[in-house]
């Protein structure tokens, strides 16, 4: 044992020191590894590029024919060969707006509850249930919506809004109430985006330094004042990022909306009226699109959706990143 490192090993008949030989090692494996992981990483931007190209190609015939009027024209008449995306764009914006109005305060409340207020034993189960909302497939929301939410919209929600709250005269709540409507789509979207907004908001709130809270409490603030004056302002741009992230989800959500919005290409002021969103228009008409121009017009709607969600997501990620990078 003691001769394990004896100097006798250092002599070599060929005159090449075995030490020098022992210190050589091949690095081919490292080079291959580096090239492979880089290639996998490059797959992400490449995939995004391919998505952009493929949608651009599919949309080109319709877009080149209609030009900018594609997004401003409000006639979507397949038989007449008229393809104006304005009703779908309008429906997308309105349903997403309803979703945000309903989901934002709830998500904020839940996040504040989970990060600041809830007793320890409640945090895990409530957090888990809220997260679970994100795991439910869109088509299951749609199914539930058709058989539970839509009947509820006809009665009691519709009459409650019109008669009890006396909103029947306002254009937003006028017209017949079939249940299938912009409002139903907005409600289901609100439930669906709630977990996304809440997840980001919770993460951002937890990133607020403890010192920030303690300083407020030391000044004699109540618990709510501490949250309002010390925690929320610190997390503000991250919370906005989370809301915009939720908006991105709502804009592109397809199945549940397709099943509940009524699918009619009209612009109506009433939230009880059926409508279309970009995603539901594509999903609903794709299988019956027989002419090349109809297909291309649907793809052009997809292209608009792609660009809009790309921008919305980029803004949201940037906002969230700005807040959480300091905490890491």
């Amino acid at each position: 044992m003691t001769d394990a490192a004896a100097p006798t090993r250092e002599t070599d008949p060929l005159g090449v020191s075995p030490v020098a030989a022992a210190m050589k090692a091949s690095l081919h494996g490292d080079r291959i590894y580096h090239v492979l992981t880089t290639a996998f990483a490059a797959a992400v931007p490449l995939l995004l590029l391919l998505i952009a190209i493929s949608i651009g190609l599919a949309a080109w015939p319709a877009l080149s024919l209609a030009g900018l009027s594609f997004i401003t024209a409000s006639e979507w008449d397949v038989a007449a060969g008229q393809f104006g995306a304005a009703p779908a764009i309008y429906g997308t914006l309105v349903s997403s707006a309803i979703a945000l109005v309903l989901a934002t305060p709830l998500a904020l409340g839940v996040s504040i509850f989970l990060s600041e207020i809830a007793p320890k034993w409640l945090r895990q189960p409530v957090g888990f249930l809220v997260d679970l909302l994100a795991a439910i497939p869109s088509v299951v929301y749609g199914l539930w919506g058709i058989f539970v939410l839509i009947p509820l919209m006809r009665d009691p929600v519709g009459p409650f809004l019109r008669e009890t709250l006396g909103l029947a005269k306002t254009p937003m709540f006028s017209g017949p109430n079939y249940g299938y409507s912009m409002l139903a789509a907005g409600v289901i979207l609100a439930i669906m985006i709630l977990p996304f907004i809440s997840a980001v908001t919770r993460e951002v709130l937890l990133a607020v330094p403890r010192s920030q809270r303690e300083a407020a409490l030391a000044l004699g603030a109540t618990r709510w004042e501490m949250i309002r004056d010390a925690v929320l302002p610190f997390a503000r741009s991250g919370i906005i990022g989370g809301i915009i992230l939720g908006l991105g989800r709502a804009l592109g959500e397809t199945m549940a909306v397709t099943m509940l919005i009524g699918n009619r290409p009209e612009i109506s002021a009433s939230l009880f009226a059926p409508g279309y969103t970009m995603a539901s228009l594509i999903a609903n008409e794709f299988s019956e699109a027989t002419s090349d121009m109809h297909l291309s017009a649907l793809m052009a709607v997809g292209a608009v959706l792609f660009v809009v969600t790309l921008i919305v997501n980029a803004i949201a990620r940037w906002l969230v990143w700005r807040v959480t990078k300091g905490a890491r």
Partner: protein
Amino acid sequence: MRVEDAEAEAAWPRKATAEEMPEPRKDADTQPAPAVSIREPVPEAPGQPEQPVHPRLATHRLNAYFGEVRAVRNATVEFPDRQVTAVIGPSGCGKSTLLRCLNRMHETVPGAGVEGDVTLDGSSIYRGGSSAIGVRRNIGMVFQRPTPFPTMSVRDNVASGLRILGRGGPSRSEADGIVEDSLTRAGLWDEVKDRLRESAIALSGGQQQRLCIARALATKPRVLLLDEPTASLDPLSTQTIEELVYELRTAIAVVIVTHNMQQAARVSDRTAFMLGGELIEVAATKTLFTNPSDSRTEAYVTGRFG
């Protein structure tokens, strides 16, 4: 790859059995760590052969950088075979960086750079086709905190350095022998021989650190580098490790970085003092602590700063 495999094979000629191993010192003459007293350095360790001491590892005008910051300045020092060399100095003096240059771990830090040279038995570890991987297989290292691989059993941890040798490495049964051998040398065999299949992180901190030493010894390195190996351990584990280091010097060159002067005095034959990235003085441990030639060394060892 081939060259290195052949050499790896050559590194396994002997399967030392447990009987050949020097008995772990159980007698208390290594002292239970008194407060300040400097132990008589050991000019003649028991069983040390009479061959002349020659440098295993040597640095030549070594400079180490983190970006623009020069952490080690013009260090030229020799680390003799079969001796323990301690490197001491205040925090941030560059002693760990110097150590990490000795097996090319320094360059794993982004922005790190090295000038000058380090030789192992006369061959440069930076030039002449030496690769960092090959260098590290010949110069083992143990870190400040124990770093057992959490996904591996005790046995697999010790054998982990052998497995990477592939076909040139030992067979499974040979590896089992080497595992026992290395654990015995690290003074851990008796404690873990019935727990070889258990997770390594189930061991205590001191046991984990000795496991890491066993893991480093398993590949039969020519030099063992220890970077403050007891900094995260309790006094009892520290004493065990110190006794182990004392034993290792009968077979291998050891370099130990420590911020603890008593430890340096207890375990080392030679001590190097660093300050502000510079090597101030290198001498026999007793000389350096009792009769330093540089006033800065004297100030440090007498506790006037640091």
